[in-house]
């Protein structure tokens, strides 16, 4: 706050050039919020278009898919509510209005309001995604801290395992784990969503590929950071190798991985679709598959919007985490 703007009263001065950090911060938060609203609007628009691109009658898409046989009264009610007899922009406006009021329609495959389905299914998915994210980072850190620039065979082994791990499709890994741990040695339950034991296999199946990917990114940054002068300084101060790695190098090496967290959360929720199906877990992923395969458009759109919302929140958290970890930003605070 010690520095003052050279033109404090000039309105023509571009705000970005103003050295006032609070101002910059406020601008950043504002643009971030606008961007988030934009993501939600984009998701809503894409969903709207997808619903209108569906083959067949839109009324049946809302009321019960190709197999439904609605009465003329319900059809008339739907036409009125959704404005189906009016031009497309009006329909779009009505659609956004309904979303703003939290009205996501009724899922005909579940015979429940979409909101109720989402409320019941979100928590198990978040639980799965969170535990997988934690495990993925633990695996990545173990591999990077344990093998980067150690003995050459160890280093090669670490980076090889990471490449293979990142290339494993979650559904295949899930099936192998299911076969091995649930059906062959009967160690863990094959399905379910209530116990901690049932969470283990799905978590591992989601975490290994993500961990491999995060480890690859972190390894590269770790190698670059190891060559920085501050490492030599730290060693000259008499710090042991382990301390140098964990206290100084790691903080720099974590940044690229953290900036990918937003992507990682998206990938986890996306892949949870497959994993929840394999392990018959409760969750929005499995509901999405059910919704898509029964062409239950209200449910499908509700889940896509919910995933977008989660994605936006994850974006905020990623930014916050970045500020906390980045040593350069920390020094400036």
């Amino acid at each position, binding site marked *: 706050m010690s520095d003052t703007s050279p033109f404090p009263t000039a309105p023509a001065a571009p705000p970005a050039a103003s050295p006032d950090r609070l101002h910059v911060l406020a601008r950043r938060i504002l643009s971030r919020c606008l*961007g988030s609203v*934009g*993501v939600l609007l*984009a998701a809503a628009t*894409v*969903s709207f278009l*997808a*619903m209108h*691109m*569906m*083959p067949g009658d839109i009324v049946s898409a809302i009321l019960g898919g190709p197999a439904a046989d609605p009465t003329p009264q319900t059809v008339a009610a739907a036409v009125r509510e959704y404005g189906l007899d009016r031009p497309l922009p009006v329909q779009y406006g009505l659609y956004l209005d309904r979303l703003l009021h939290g009205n996501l329609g009724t899922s005909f495959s579940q015979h429940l309001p979409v909101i109720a389905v989402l409320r019941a299914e979100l928590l198990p998915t978040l639980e799965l995604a969170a535990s997988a994210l934690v495990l993925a980072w633990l695996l990545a850190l173990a591999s990077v801290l344990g093998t980067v*620039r*150690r*003995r*050459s*065979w160890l*280093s*090669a082994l670490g980076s090889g395992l990471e*490449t*293979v791990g*990142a*290339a*494993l*499709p*979650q*559904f*295949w890994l899930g*099936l*192998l784990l299911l*076969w091995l741990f649930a*059906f062959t040695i009967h160690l863990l339950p*094959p399905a379910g969503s209530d116990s901690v034991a049932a969470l283990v296999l799905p978590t591992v199946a989601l975490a290994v590929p993500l961990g491999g990917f995060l480890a690859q990114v972190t390894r590269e940054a770790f190698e670059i950071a*190891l060559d920085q002068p501050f490492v030599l300084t730290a*060693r*000259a101060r*008499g710090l042991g*190798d382990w301390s140098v790695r964990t206290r100084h190098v790691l903080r720099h090496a974590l940044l690229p991985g953290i900036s*990918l967290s*937003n*992507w990682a959360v*998206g*990938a986890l*929720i*996306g*892949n949870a*679709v*497959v994993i929840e199906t*394999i392990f018959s877990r409760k969750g929005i992923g499995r509901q*999405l*598959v059910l919704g*898509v*395969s029964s*062409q239950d*458009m209200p449910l*499908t759109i509700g*889940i*896509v919007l919910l*995933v*977008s919302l989660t*994605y936006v929140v994850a974006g905020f958290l990623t930014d916050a985490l970045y500020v906390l970890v980045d040593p350069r930003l920390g020094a400036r605070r």
Partner: protein
Amino acid sequence: MSAGLLDAAAGSAAAEAGQAGSRRPALRVAPALAGLFLLFLLLAAIAPDLLSHTDPLAIVPRDAFRPPGWAHPFGTDQSGRDIFARIVHGTRQSLLVGLGATGLAMAAAIGLGLLGGLCGRVAERAVGWLVQVMFSFPVLILALLFAASFGNGIVPLVAATGIGSAPGYARMVFGQVLSVRDAGYVEAARALGHGPLRIVRAHVLPNAMRPLVVTATMGVGHAIMWASALSFLGLGAPPPRPEWGTMLSMGRSFVANAWWLTFFPGLAIVLTMLSTTVLGRALQRRLEGRTA
């Protein structure tokens, strides 16, 4: 203390040297293996009958659920069909889906990138925002949304996978177009009086595409995986056809007592993905080495 420091320095230097020494041959072996595997896949896609004489659709009920052995190297499925034959015959489908989806994604990305980079400030802002926002949106969710509206089958599968993975490419192309747009050679071409179409074709596109070659190579493997995930969820090729994702999906019901039904089709997907990744990286090193 200084001895320890020297030690550490020497150690890291030795590690570096060791790494370089051990990496060089490993680098050549891995891409060679990857290339060999992809050639094998290509052969399987073009002439599957050369690799397997068994009919992938022949139902032999008394041979159902045979574990891997001499007669059936990868075992047989619930109808006694040979898994190896089915994987070989499914290669064409899987490769076509992967290539088609990657091609579609690239085409969409190039369109968006050129639009954003060359059509004025408003377009630049809009595309920049769109790309930023969509880049990390879950591919599978997007693909599922489109699968819901397109219905089942191979063409919807390609479309859904392609649209799902387009944002990642678009981000790259857009960034490249922005950096190429202001390059000296483009300015020179403009000064020479070349038309905008000619400049785009001769300068902007080739230069913007170079890093994309690497991404696309790796992308084919990923597209095959995404498409198999969709097929696995029952949104791809209809069941009797041999397709890797569909085979996995069918084998899922029997995972408790016949692991080979899911193991081998999945292995084909993993090896394909690994091969394209390794080959893409080798390509990247080569391109970087050339420009550096």
